């Protein structure tokens, strides 16, 4: 198992006295990381070591594994390159990210995966796990070289940005991925049905082309049927529709021969379509921000474990594209920089879920689903840890974003919870400026 590609060499560190949060509970203890791997977690560790951090008053979380992340390299590194993308990730508490393949050209060959690996080994802070394009040129027609791409280090396959449009290709993708033990990550969208905003509030008030739940639902239904037919591993990403989440709940209960999982994004949990102003494109996203009712169903699905993960769908866009009219602006939110703080502030502080549940959704489950030796602060796991000050209150401003994309709806949000250190491979890769 390749542990993602990063330029950070393994190192040693001792964290004293932080409150350690794992998916299965919390305790106050010291954490010793040696050679990039968690060596010991216990009270009163004494060791002479290069770097010691006083963690008192901080909470220690296993670094977030963000399974849906866009970097615009190759193609548009000025929008987001591996360096800026992984820096904004580290800033947001993300220590591993799954890089989506909808670059230009799409990551559909071992040569391109190798290119990403080499770049990441030189420039990446967070671990970059490339996701291979499921079909050639991401056209949704013919499966690509999963075996050769796996040798170069892909973690999964997807046509994200689109569905695997041909149902036949989807069947073959599930079968071929299963052959190599890979998961097919599906962006569920029937492009003939989709539009610019959720069918409802905005489309009624402004006549914008509707993007109904149905555009997502028909693909989710098809994919569940094909997962059962093939016995493959299907992961539905950024689920936004209440109907879809109900189908997934039912499928997980009924279908035993296939593994069906899903994630949702922070923005579909935090916003609803009534929050959108026609002049603010920072809430234009694909799939669209849905109705209050859909949002409520997603939250319920988190509570009953239908949802396996929360992923950022970090999608940076340059100002000249995003500061545009609602219809012309490309969909996407730059959301990596405050990923963990926003979730902590909006979900945990507001009492929707407890912090152990958050760790389960952003670290533990992604690690389990994709076989990454992380997601827990425990002996033998990789030394990727985030230290959060749970009480720090502040306003998010545009200049705080390390991402090249400033298209964030969280600007001017007042939040509680700040990433103080992000440790990757046992090395401090991000440290908050506390002056």
């Amino acid at each position, binding site marked *: 198992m390749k542990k993602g590609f990063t330029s950070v060499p393994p190192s040693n560190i001792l964290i004293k006295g932080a409150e350690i949060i794992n998916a299965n509970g919390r305790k106050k203890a010291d954490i010793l990381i040696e050679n990039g791997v968690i060596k010991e977690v216990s009270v009163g560790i004494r060791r002479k070591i290069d770097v010691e951090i006083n963690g008192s008053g901080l909470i220690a979380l296993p670094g977030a594994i963000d399974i849906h992340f866009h970097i615009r390299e190759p193609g548009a590194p000025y929008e987001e390159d591996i360096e800026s993308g992984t820096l904004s990730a580290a800033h947001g508490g993300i220590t591993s990210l799954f890089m989506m393949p909808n670059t230009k050209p799409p990551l559909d060959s071992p040569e391109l995966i190798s290119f990403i690996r080499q770049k990441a080994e030189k420039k990446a802070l967070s671990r970059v796990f490339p996701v291979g394009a499921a079909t050639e040129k991401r056209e949704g027609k*013919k*499966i690509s*070289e999963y*075996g*050769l791409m796996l040798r170069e280090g892909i973690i999964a396959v997807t046509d994200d940005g689109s569905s695997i449009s041909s149902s036949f290709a989807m069947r*073959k993708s599930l*079968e071929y991925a299963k*052959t*190599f033990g890979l998961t097919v990550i599906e962006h569920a969208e029937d492009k003939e049905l989709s539009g610019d905003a959720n069918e409802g509030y905005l489309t009624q008030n402004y006549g914008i082309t509707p993007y109904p739940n149905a555009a997502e639902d028909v693909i989710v239904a098809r994919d569940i049927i094909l997962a059962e037919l*093939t016995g493959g591993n299907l992961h539905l990403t950024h689920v936004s529709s209440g109907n879809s989440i109900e189908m997934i709940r039912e499928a997980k209960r009924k279908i035993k021969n296939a593994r069906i999982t899903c994630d949702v994004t922070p923005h579909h949990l935090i916003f609803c379509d009534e929050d959108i102003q026609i002049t603010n494109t920072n809430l234009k996203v694909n799939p669209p921000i849905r109705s209050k009712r859909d949002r409520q169903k997603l939250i319920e699905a988190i509570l009953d474990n239908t949802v396996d993960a929360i992923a950022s769908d970090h999608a940076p866009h340059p100002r000249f594209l995003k500061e545009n009219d609602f219809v012309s602006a490309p969909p996407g939110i730059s959301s990596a920089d405050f990923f963990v703080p926003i979730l902590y502030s909006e979900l945990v502080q507001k009492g929707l879920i407890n912090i152990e549940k958050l760790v389960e959704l952003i670290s533990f489950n992604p690690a389990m689903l994709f076989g990454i030796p992380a997601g827990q602060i425990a002996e033998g796991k990789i030394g990727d840890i985030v230290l959060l000050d749970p009480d720090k209150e502040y306003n998010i401003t545009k200049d705080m974003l390390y991402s090249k994309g400033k298209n964030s709806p969280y600007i001017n949000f007042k939040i509680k919870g700040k990433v103080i250190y992000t440790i990757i491979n046992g090395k401090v890769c991000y440290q908050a400026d506390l002056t």
Partner: protein
Amino acid sequence: MKSLLSVDSLKLSEIQEIIDSTYSMYDVLSREIKKLPTLRGKVISLMFFEPSTRTRISFEIASKLLSADIVNFSPSGSSVEKGENLLDTANTILSLGADLIVVRHSREGVPWFIFERLKIPVVNAGDGKNEHPTQALLDLFTMMKHKSVKNLSEFRNVQVSIVGDILHSRVARSNIKLLSKIGARVILVSAYTTLYQNLPEGVKVKNFIDNDVLSSDFIIALRLQRERHGNAFYPSEREYFEFWGVKQDLVEKAKGLLIMHPGPMNMGVEIDQTVAYSENSLIFDQVKNGVAVRMAVLYYLLTKGRLD
């Protein structure tokens, strides 16, 4: 058995009888005068609606060596080009006096259709992705001869791995049925994109060539059937060769492993040319044995078969 449409209908005793007879025919082939008078006066029609080298020519030689007269039919240059349908074409051949029809067609089920309507012996020489029973018989004979065994019971527990595009291979389908029937151990090696459900009991499935596969007595490499499906089931030839190609280093690792292939081969796709032409290869043996097996089958159907 008046026809050989599928391996399904073959009884063990019939398989044994055909193998016995193949051994005799094989001896005939090494005589100076190879011709037997057995089928004198019989007319065999070879209806090949799909291209073929080995199978067509070996049926032709087999018929001639048994002194049958043959009528070669191919769609190009026939009334099929004028739009004559399958049944009318076959009926025409029958009216012209054929005693047995050997048929190959790209559509599954055609041999059954012809047999049911014409009521004369039919040999399935390959129907689409379905079956190719004489190939399975010649593969079995090749393996038995190589092991110097004459009795089917001695072939039990021999391990045969079939590698590659199982789903589109009529050779694989007939071999799986025949080998399971006689109690050989069968391992299929393929991606899930080219496997099918409801395999005979005891057939093992693997995704890749592992040590278990390399411990087989024989590996049958299958032709990647690009002409049937483009590249919709495997992404590329280089990936296919990397993961399912029978390569020299694999064969070197295994002791006494023998390699077969129904042909025509895609070199550098399902098989390495070093392997194809090596001493571990039985590929050219297979072709030679094909004549003997087809002599045995034709003889069986046109003499003994009638006595059933």
